[in-house]
Each structure stands twice: as structure tokens, then as C-alpha cells.
């Protein structure tokens, strides 16, 4: 074994020995750090589950134009050139949806075929569905409002509806949530560093004599610092594992409640635990935060001892 590796093995063993000497204290610190980590980890899990759902939804506006019930097929189809004129300069796909097709679609999607058959006649009007591309800014939103207004003024038009606004609101909400989570994670990251900083400070004070003797016997700074770095990283790693375990365990009862709620919307949405790669990333981040706390503490307190 190379001397470098041997020194690291010795430092790791020294860190483990410190843990073994005061397991209660170590466990308590792990729980405090885990509490701080659990909140952002839960947020990451939630966002990770919601993100694919929001990404599947189209953010490009979809404008639906419905004619009055009395409008004839000819009247409805005669409006198309005017629609093209209104949408001039925009990338738009205009699809005419005859009332018969609309009813067929409704029957197929809602599963209410039998109920709709009892109505006798088709209550749905002819309509146009227009998909617009490249509308994402506030200025584009103002253009859509103008388009909707002009379409609403066309003859025999009953309603013009923009279907994308709620999707945009959801996307904006997710953006805010993501930012809030980032700020929360940063704040709690500082908490983690502070807890580890204080833990290591106490260890440095406890082992003051051992540090002083080791220095007199020829220990380098690295030799003295390394066990504290390992302790900090170990503390962060264990806390990360506990926090991830707690979040994963919490998913089970949460999913029970979510399943009931999702069933109301004919959905089977469930919160899934994070992927192994994400788990590994968060564990590495936790260990990194612990290491950073230990680094800052060791640099500060051992410098004072000198």
C-alpha cells in the first residue's frame, strides 16, 4: 500500500474511532443535519416528479374558436380565409373540426358514449382549432389577446378560447417553486455547514492535546487535518442518507393520499423516489457540504491553536 493511501486509511480509521467513542453525539448531529437536508430533498423529489408532467404539456397557445349553435357549415367554413388573414405573419396551423368529429372525439375521450347518445342531437358546434408557434414573451401574450379579440368579432362566432394560459401559469409556478427550492437549499446548505463547523470545532477542542503531541512528534498539518475532514464528510454523508431515507419512506403514505386525489382526474399519478444517479448526486453533495464545514472549521480553529 502506498504511503499516501496508508495515511488516508489511518485518517479514516481515526475518524471512525472518534465516531465510536461518542456515537450518541454523532447520531444527534446526523439527525440535526438530516433535518436540514430533508426539506430540500423532499422538494427536489416533488419537482422531479412534476417536471416531466409539465414538460409533456404544450406551452404553445392553442386557440379554439366555437360558432354559435345556429351557424351553418358553409358560414363556418367561409370564415377560414379571414382567420388566415388575422393570423398572417404567425406560424399557425388551422384545423376545422366539424361538430360530428367533435362529438366522436368527446365520446372516445370521456367514455360517456352511452350518455351522449341519449341526447338525440349533437349539442356541439363547428369549431376551429389553431396551434400557434413562437408565442412565449409578454409581447406575444398581448398579440394573442388582440388575435382573440379580432376572431371574436367575426360573424356567427360564439366563443374564442385560449387553452395555453393555465399551462403557462403552471410553468411559471414551477419556475417559482424551483427558485424557492434553490434559495431554501442554499439557506439549509449554510445550516449544514454551520452544524458541521461547530461539531468539528468541539472535536478540535476535545483533541487539543492529541493534536499538540502529534505535532511535536512530527505530524504534518495534513496528517492532523485529514481525520476531521473525514468526520465532516461522514457526517454529511450519513445525514444525506437519513434524509433521503426519510423522504423515500414518506412517499408511501403520501402516495396513498395522492392516488385518491388523482383518481378524481382519471390519473394514476404517483410520486416516485429519485433515480439512483440523483440519489448518488445528493449523497455526494451532502458529503461535500460536510467536508466544507469541516474544512472551514479546521482551518480556523487549528490556525488559532498555532
Amino acid at each position, binding site marked *: *500500500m502506498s*504511503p499516501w493511501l*496508508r*495515511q488516508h486509511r*489511518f485518517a479514516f480509521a481515526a475518524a471512525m474511532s472518534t465516531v465510536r*467513542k461518542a456515537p450518541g453525539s454523532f447520531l444527534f448531529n446526523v439527525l440535526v443535519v438530516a433535518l436540514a437536508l430533508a426539506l430540500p430533498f423532499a422538494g427536489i423529489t416533488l419537482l422531479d416528479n412534476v417536471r416531466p408532467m409539465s414538460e409533456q404539456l404544450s406551452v404553445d397557445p392553442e386557440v379554439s374558436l366555437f360558432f354559435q349553435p345556429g351557424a351553418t357549415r358553409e358560414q363556418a367554413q367561409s370564415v377560414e380565409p379571414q382567420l388566415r388573414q388575422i393570423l398572417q405573419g404567425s406560424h399557425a396551423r388551422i384545423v376545422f373540426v366539424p361538430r360530428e368529429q367533435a362529438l366522436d372525439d368527446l365520446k372516445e375521450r370521456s367514455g360517456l358514449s352511452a350518455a351522449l347518445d341519449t341526447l338525440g342531437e349533437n349539442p356541439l358546434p363547428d369549431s376551429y382549432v389553431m396551434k400557434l408557434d413562437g408565442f412565449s414573451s409578454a409581447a406575444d401574450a398581448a398579440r394573442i389577446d388582440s388575435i382573440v379579440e379580432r376572431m371574436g368579432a367575426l360573424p356567427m362566432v360564439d366563443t374564442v378560447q385560449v387553452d395555453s394560459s393555465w399551462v403557462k401559469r403552471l410553468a411559471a409556478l414551477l419556475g417559482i417553486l424551483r427558485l424557492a427550492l434553490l434559495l431554501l437549499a442554499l439557506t439549509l446548505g449554510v445550516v449544514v455547514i454551520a452544524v458541521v463547523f461547530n461539531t468539528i470545532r468541539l472535536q478540535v477542542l476535545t483533541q487539543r*492535546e*492529541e493534536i*499538540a*503531541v*502529534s*505535532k*511535536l*512528534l*512530527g*505530524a*504534518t498539518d495534513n*496528517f492532523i487535518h485529514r481525520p476531521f475532514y473525514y468526520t465532516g464528510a461522514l457526517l454529511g454523508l450519513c445525514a444525506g442518507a437519513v434524509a433521503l431515507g426519510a423522504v423515500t419512506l414518506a412517499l408511501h403514505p403520501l402516495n396513498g393520499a395522492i392516488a385518491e386525489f388523482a383518481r378524481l382526474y382519471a390519473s394514476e399519478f404517483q410520486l416516485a423516489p429519485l433515480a439512483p444517479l440523483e440519489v448518488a448526486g445528493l449523497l455526494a453533495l451532502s458529503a461535500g457540504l460536510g467536508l466544507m464545514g469541516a474544512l472551514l472549521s479546521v482551518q480556523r480553529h487549528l490556525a488559532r491553536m498555532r
Partner: protein
Amino acid sequence: MIEFHSVSKQYSADATALSDVSLNIEKGELVYLAGPSGAGKSTLMKMIAAIERPSSGRVIVFGQDIGKLKKPGIPFLRRKLGLIFQHQRLLNDRNILANTMLPLLVAGAPKGGAEQRARAALDKVGLLERAKAHPLELSGGEQQRVAIARAIVNRPQIILADEPTANLDRVAADKVLDALRAFHSVGVTCLISTHDEQVLDGAARVIRLEHGQLVGGAL
């Protein structure tokens, strides 16, 4: 091997520990550093181990100027020294075998080899059978012998013993001194400080310090 050239050490304006000290200790010498408490003996020893730096003058150890020695070089200088303190400074949370192994582990020696050498060192000071005992279970004299074992385990070229017999009865003190003389007999340079005149009986060379100044024995 150890040279002091007009060395002075001042902790503050009115606290002078050493004043214009010049001396030379050759390889393989056994030198006693005598003087009353506060004479500057400990400061002189600390300078050899780079625990203190001179305020003026030059301290040369193994050809290196201690005043100019950079921080990363200090541990490597100390690994060539065996330090014995008046209050032993053993670590009470581990047994004496672990205490004796410490200088080797600090220097990056493998654990198995370190344990073997630590046992051999404890055997030399007559404490091998107590290897698993903790320092607080030993008498003062035994603790000082553990400190000697810890000092010699790294096979140092110089042993610096600062008042090693100060808190010991005559019998224990003699055992400690016998152990140190045994290492000197195999070529190790030894510098032993003491304020006990009885320790100096039969000494080949005694350097005397008073109020931080040399009053005899410098060559």
C-alpha cells in the same frame, strides 16, 4: 550536530529567556543542560525542535538554520528528534503501545511494522509486559519510560529530554537516566536538561545556564 550562534530569545521587552548563547554539540555526545528553574533550559530545547524561533542569532540543527526553516519542513526535522518532556504528555485515551506507535504512524509507517517496533521500544525500557495498560495505570517513573520508548521508537539521531526526572523519586529517576545513557551508548546524541545536581554526577559535559546566559560548559 547542534550549533547555537549568539542566540537570544525575548518573549517581550522585559522577558528575556536566552541572551547571546553560543554552543556546539557534536554527534554522539551526551550533554547535560543544568540550571535553576527559569534559566532558559526549556527555551533552548524548544529551539532545537523548532517549537520556538530565536529572536536573534542562529540555531543550526542537522545543518539546517532553524530560523529560516519553512513551516512544512518542521515535521520532518522533528521526526529526526526524540522529544521527552517533564510531564510526559502521553495520551490517556489509549494504551501505552498505541502511545509508543504514534511517532511511526505520524511518519506514515504501516501499522503492523509500527506495532512491532513499538513493542521493541517498550521492551528496551522494560515495559513490554504492560503494553496494554493505559498511562494513568502507571507510576510516574513508568510513564516517563513510556515517553522514552516513544522518543526512541523512530530511531532518532538526537534525544532531547527536558527535565525527565523532575517529578520522580531517586530509584525511578535512575532507571530513566539509565535508559537514556543506554541509547547514548549506541551513538544517539542526547541533551538532558535538569535542575537536579545529583543527576550530574559523573557527567562528561555539563552546559550551565543562569538567567538565560551561559555560565559554563559551552565549547
